[in-house]
């Protein structure tokens, strides 16, 4: 009896606080994505614009580890029985990947463009995945700084 009570309390706590934290995080992600919109980011290897004007290049990266709340972990375990899309983990991955890219951009705010953006995901709790569902996302790329840092978006 006490078991059920404890689980119900944990699930509802997880639901309310998890939802609050998630909404707050999404809010901040959207605002920062808007702020960094003008920094060109591509997954292509060639930089956009005139290669002659490049002053220096630099490897940049950003990473984040995010965990799911108790409610979502519970939901995911249930979903595992029936199969199908695990909705509970979709937002976890979406948030983690967007946050990692944002941190990468925040690490080089003066760059003119970022090329060859790559993303890696890993699960740091794989051995005990039923207990902790957390994921690490690493975003890395090459930041390119132009000689004239006031230059607008490059035109080829």
């Amino acid at each position, binding site marked *: 009896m006490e078991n059920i009570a404890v689980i119900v309390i944990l699930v509802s706590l997880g639901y309310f606080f998890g939802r609050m934290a998630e909404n707050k995080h999404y809010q901040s992600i959207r605002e920062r994505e808007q702020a960094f919109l003008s920094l060109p980011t591509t997954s292509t290897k060639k930089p956009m614009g005139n290669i002659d004007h490049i002053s220096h290049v630099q490897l940049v990266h950003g990473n984040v580890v995010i965990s799911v709340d108790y409610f979502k972990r519970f939901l995911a375990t249930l979903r595992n*029985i029936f199969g*199908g899309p695990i909705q509970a*983990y979709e937002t976890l991955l979406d948030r983690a990947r967007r946050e990692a890219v944002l941190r990468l951009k925040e690490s080089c705010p003066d760059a003119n463009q970022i090329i060859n953006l790559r993303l890696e*995901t890993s699960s740091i709790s794989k051995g005990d995945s039923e207990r902790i569902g957390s994921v690490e996302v690493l975003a890395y790329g090459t930041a390119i700084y132009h000689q004239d840092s006031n230059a607008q978006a490059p035109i080829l």
Partner: protein
Amino acid sequence: MFVTNIEDVPGKTITVCHGIVSGSTVRAKHMGRDIMASLKNIFGGELKGYTELLGESREQAIERMKAQALQMGANAIVNVRFSTSSVAAGAAEIYVYGTAVNVE
């Protein structure tokens, strides 16, 4: 919609670059499949249930990425990369990303 994993779309020129687009999905198979897979592990061979699961997941991730590109007004995605991870046991997580562009 052109989707490639090279720098450009052969025979076309890129006119506008829109930035990164991505699609992700997390899916699980039902218990029955998991049990079949663990049995199959004894004898080896293809795990049809899991092949199907990962195939479906990639398909869905690509669809989601394309939907994002369409919203941006792009007509091609170049330099597409796949990335997988495992958060939950028995579930497949696929992430696919690329650069949304317009080609002519």
